């Protein structure tokens, strides 16, 4: 059949294409233009944590070591008030088959695709997720197509993404290296129409359920070793899957008191779809350019309802600078003997300032690391930044300007975790959700949904609606 492949026509077939490529009908979970049955969606795959663990064990995903970072803890204590400086642990997710926690995210979706009889999987990602999908597809004998936003219009690509192209191809995937633009989604729809493959979106329920084992595992590891659950878990936040899956896993393990903190690299001011800004950032994920919109507009993604809903789970959200992440990447190698990729150390950067707030006997867990390779290193990323007109220097990280200046701290005590006002984020979320429902008046059930979905309260949602002069259904 010869179908029209023009941009507007392919995009107009979005709903049909996505439904065919997921074997999942989202409409059954709709409650109103605002509310939907989130837990119903999450349970739709029918996998329990122990079943997911069993599936992941088959391909060597998970069961990663929990390592106490004693020297970094000592460093944090040397700059803390007396009695302060929590013990810092890291979950060494680099030990997963393709080198990051993204194997968890990919494993269940690819298993699910194989079970449903799909011939292959498609994923749009410039991050570690591509390699994870390709690796899992190899294990299950499925074909993988990975779509990556790699180049600006000069065909200059970030070393980190070029490394991921290499990794995906090493696992046998067909990789489309694309220029900057949201049309990545158009290409994905086009390829789904051509191939009939499964869309291994980052935001489907199986992608998030696959990550639940991470939170579950780390809670159990801490409990077994220390006789208690962790006091705080630090999670790099971008699209929301890492926070959502980990937090859900912590809850399922019974670790209800753990403070869930999201951390993103501060890239405020850089436009994510800009050809010009594209190569002025050193971080391609776990940054505010994804972090903010995915909190305030979780459903603006490639699936009808996003299973990654970080705002439901975050107790706190902090920003760190690129220079601070490069600095702690050095600390991890030089003090702890763990040479790991910088992007995976985003939440580690926040660990030092946050450990200073906690007592010495408290436990803080940084829940990931990632593999490192050519391109995924502070040295290659800083060299690239300089080649693209970014100033690199040592000094006070407060002088960091995203896209212009990267400041490597001179001392550990200069590292700050800037608190993001989550109430403001919640207000934006409520505003966006109501606007997206186009003229629909929220009901009591919608207000309850928004309170849950933003981890606020019914009173908070009511007040926000009043402040925004939004009428509520009688």
């Amino acid at each position, binding site marked *: 059949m010869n179908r029209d492949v023009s*941009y507007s026509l392919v995009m107009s077939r979005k709903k049909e294409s996505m439904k065919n490529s997921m074997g999942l009908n989202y409409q059954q979970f709709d409650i109103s233009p605002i509310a939907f049955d989130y837990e119903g969606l999450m349970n739709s795959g029918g996998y329990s944590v122990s079943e997911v663990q069993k599936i992941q064990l088959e391909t060597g995903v998970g069961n990663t070591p929990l390592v106490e970072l004693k020297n970094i803890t000592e*460093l944090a204590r040397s700059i803390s008030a007396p009695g302060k400086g929590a013990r810092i642990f890291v979950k060494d997710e680099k030990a997963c088959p393709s080198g990051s926690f993204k194997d968890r995210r990919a494993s269940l979706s690819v298993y699910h695709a194989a079970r449903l009889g799909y011939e292959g999987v498609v994923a749009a990602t410039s991050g570690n997720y591509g390699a994870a999908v390709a690796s899992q597809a190899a294990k299950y004998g499925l074909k993988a197509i990975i779509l990556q936003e790699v180049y600006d219009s000069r065909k200059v690509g970030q070393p980190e993404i070029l490394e991921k192209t290499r990794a995906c191809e090493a696992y046998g995937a067909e990789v489309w290296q694309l220029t900057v633009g949201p049309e990545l989604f158009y290409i994905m729809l086009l390829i789904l129409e051509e*191939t009939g493959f499964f869309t291994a979106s980052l935001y489907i329920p199986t992608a998030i359920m696959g990550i639940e084992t991470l939170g579950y595992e780390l809670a159990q590891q801490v409990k077994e070793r220390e006789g208690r659950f962790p006091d705080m878990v630090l999670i790099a936040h971008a699209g929301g899957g890492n926070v959502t899956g980990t937090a859900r896993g912590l809850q399922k393990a019974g670790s209800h008191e753990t403070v869930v903190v999201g951390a993103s690299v501060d890239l405020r001011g850089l436009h994510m779809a800009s*050809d010009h800004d594209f190569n002025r950032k050193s971080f391609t994920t776990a940054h505010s350019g994804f972090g903010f919109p995915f909190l305030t507009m979780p459903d603006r993604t490639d699936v009808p309802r996003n299973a990654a809903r970080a705002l439901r789970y975050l107790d706190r959200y902090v920003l760190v600078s690129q220079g601070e992440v490069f600095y702690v990447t050095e*600390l991890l190698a030089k003090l702890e003997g763990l040479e790991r990729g910088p992007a995976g150390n985003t939440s580690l950067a926040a660990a030092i300032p946050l450990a200073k707030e906690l007592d010495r006997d408290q436990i803080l867990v940084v829940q990931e690391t990632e593999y490192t390779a050519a391109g995924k290193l502070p040295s290659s990323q800083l060299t690239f930044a300089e080649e693209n007109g970014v100033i*690199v220097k040592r000094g006070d990280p407060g002088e960091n300007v995203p896209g212009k200046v990267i400041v490597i701290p001179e001392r550990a005590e200069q590292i700050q975790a800037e608190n993001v006002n989550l109430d403001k984020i919640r207000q934006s979320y409520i505003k966006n959700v109501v606007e997206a429902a186009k003229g629909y008046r929220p009901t009591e059930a919608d207000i309850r949904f928004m309170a849950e979905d933003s981890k606020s309260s019914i009173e908070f949602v009511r007040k926000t609606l009043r402040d925004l002069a939004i009428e509520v259904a009688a």
Partner: protein
Amino acid sequence: MRKTNKKGPIQTATKGDLVQIHKVILTPEQRPEGLPESTKAVPYEAWIKGFLLDEKAKVGDTVRIETFIGRELSGTLVEVNPIYDHNFGKPRQELLRIGMEVKKQIKREGKPSHE
């Protein structure tokens, strides 16, 4: 931008060679509205690798390839035997001493540093 091998870039390929093709997916006019100016001004492009299906071709020809998963695609041949040229970067003065600095600091355990 592209690196070459020692003898300069290879210009011709024969059937079965690994090649990279280029495709313009959307011209600037075909791109959607609402993009940043610098993005809207340029085409939306793709590069894909695979094995040449044509008997013989040179850089600039329109060719067919078989991708790593066995799909057939066509596009303009841009590189023969494309290499991965991302690397470890240059040594960075900003990073090199961090390890030594913090080790000194830990030795003065408990005392904040006031350098």
